[in-house]
Every structure is written in structure tokens, then in C-alpha cells.
């Protein structure tokens, strides 16, 4: 039944929008559609971003893997490589530090009235993605596959059942969040 749902194009467009509305609502309520809060995280004075992301990861991780065990969802890990994930990630990071938003929070920031995102950030991202598409053939040949490791997950890498990774990760993240709270951040 879920499979039919997944394949209904019209309904999926509506579901995507609806999930987005909730996502945007949550992001705005979390304060992370605001430049000051995101840059505060990057300057390590405000840990709201990390608290939100890590709570989402813990919740998502447990739920998704339980659903997977019940045969109700499939995982979709992205492939990666040093040339793609690390290099691309650092380029993103520099942009992150200058703009002070990421793609998701940019959409939210526009909804909150940020003109710098609407007239500067968004055109910039569109130019950036366009440039990437333009140079993709040569980038793919020269760098994107350097140090390729594919769609591997940590349980697969370590050759263990996923819960041997999930439980310590959840404990570790929870300890980190506790430490952040205790130190007054």
C-alpha cells in the first residue's frame, strides 16, 4: 500500500509541500531561520543549531532503524568520496560562514522577511548550483571520485549489527548535549 503511495506523483507533491510546511514551522520556532543564531553557532557562542540537529539525528536514527526492522522503510544513504564529501563540504562551510544560512534555513529566512537572503543568498545559490552543473563533467573526471567509498554505512564498515553503532552514538550524543547544557551553553 505504501508502495502505491510512493508512486502517486500528484499526492507526493502535496505530501512534500505539507512536510515542508511543518519543517519550516519547526525551523522558525527553533530560531534557526535567524542569521544571529546560526552564526552564533559557528562562533561557538550559541549552541541552538547543534541542539536541534543532534536531537533530530537521535530521534530520526532510532525511529528510522526501528521502521526499517519492521520492513516499512528503506535506507537511502548517499555515496561519498574524499573529493566530493570532504572538499565539497569545506566549500559549503566557507559559504556557510559568509552567508550565515544553509539552503533549508534560507527558504525559512525568506518566509521570515530576510531580504538579504531573498535578493543575495538565493540568487547566489542558484548561480553556484548552475556553475557546478556547468563544470560537472570535468569535476567528475578529476576530483569527485577521488577516494571513493560509495554508499557505505558505519554498521557495514564495521561489519556489525546497526544497534551496535546506534546505541553508543545515541549515548554519546546525549552525553554531549548534557555537557553543553551543564556548561551553560
Amino acid at each position: 500500500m505504501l508502495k502505491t503511495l510512493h508512486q502517486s506523483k500528484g499526492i507526493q507533491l502535496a505530501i512534500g509541500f505539507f512536510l515542508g510546511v511543518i519543517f519550516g514551522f519547526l525551523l522558525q520556532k527553533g530560531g534557526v531561520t535567524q542569521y544571529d543564531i546560526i552564526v552564533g553557532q559557528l562562533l561557538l557562542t550559541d549552541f541552538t543549531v547543534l541542539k536541534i540537529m543532534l536531537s533530530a539525528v537521535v530521534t530520526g536514527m532510532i525511529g528510522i532503524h526501528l521502521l526499517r526492522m519492521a520492513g516499512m522503510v528503506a535506507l537511502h544513504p548517499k555515496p561519498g568520496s574524499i573529493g566530493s564529501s570532504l572538499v565539497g563540504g569545506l566549500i559549503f562551510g566557507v559559504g556557510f560562514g559568509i552567508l550565515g544560512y544553509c539552503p533549508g534555513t534560507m527558504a525559512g529566512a525568506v518566509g521570515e522577511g530576510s531580504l538579504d537572503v531573498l535578493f543575495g543568498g538565493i540568487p547566489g545559490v542558484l548561480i553556484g548550483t548552475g556553475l557546478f552543473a556547468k563544470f560537472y563533467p570535468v569535476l567528475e573526471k578529476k576530483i569527485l571520485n577521488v577516494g571513493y567509498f560509495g554508499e557505505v554505512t558505519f554498521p557495514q564498515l564495521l561489519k556489525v549489527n546497526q544497534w551496535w553503532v546506534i546505541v553508543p552514538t545515541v549515548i554519546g550524543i546525549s552525553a554531549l548535549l548534557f555537557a553543553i547544557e551543564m556548561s551553560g551553553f
Partner: protein
Amino acid sequence: MEWLCMKQWSPYVVGIGIGVLSWFAFLLSDKPIGVSTAFSRTSGMIEKLFRGKITTEKAYYKTFPPTIDWEWMLMVGILAGAFLSAEFSDSFRIAWVPMKWGSTFGDSPALRWIGSLAGGIMIGMGARWAGGCTSGHGISGTLQLAASSWLAAAAFFAGGIITAIFLFQVL
């Protein structure tokens, strides 16, 4: 319904909410939450308006066709949802220069516009280069325990932190 009108919620409530949202994305749509592909498709759609078939023949746009899809609707939904939330809490503010930027770099909208444009270009390039952004890799990928996502997320924040500290404390 007062909680809907609050100006800010606990980050833990928001985070758990996003985590639960990701369950539904997988369940109902068989997709991880992500946002950068929507921008890539939009860029392609705009280019297609001007250059037609040349655009759709590009290798990258064969893999990621410039069309409206689930993720594109998600991006539009985020804008709508944030607007709704801001309206409920009377937080909607038309603004050019964020406070923290202004107090360090001055209130010139032109300077902020240049910075936003430059930063945006790098975000766009970097996200597609890495194959995802802080939503696609940082949340969806890490919760799936994908090595690519943990590496990308670490790079996002390492790059961001070093850049921000450089801009705000060294310059």
C-alpha cells in the same frame, strides 16, 4: 493554542519534531529530507527558460532533471511554514542587514548583498559538490549512519566555524 504563537520553542522539542518528520518522509515518500537538490533544479529550470534544450542535455541535468518534484515542493513548503510560524508569533520582519553582521561589518545593505551573494554561490557549489546540504547530509544522512554524510557534516561545520571565526575575530 498559545504554544503555536510562542516566539521560540525549546531546541529539543524542535529537534525531536524534525526527527519525527524524517520518519514520515521515509514512510510516506520513501525519501530523506533534503533541500539543495531543489535549488539545483530551480537553477536548471531558469536556465532552461533562456537556453532551452542545451540545458537539459547537460550531464548533470540528466541525473537531476530541472523539474518540480517532491523536494521542490518541500522547499516551497519550508518558506510557507516559516512565514506562518513568524506570523503566529508576530516575528515577521523585513530586514536587509542582520544585527550581528551589522554590528561587525556595518549597516550597508550593499555590502551585505555582496556577502550574501558570494556566500550563496559557495553554498550552492559546495552542496552539490558534496552531494547534499545540512538537511540532506547533516540530518538525514547522519541518522542513516552514512559515512558520506558524517564526513560532509563535519566538513560543513569545520569550514563554517573557521570562516566565521576568521571573519568576526581575525578581520
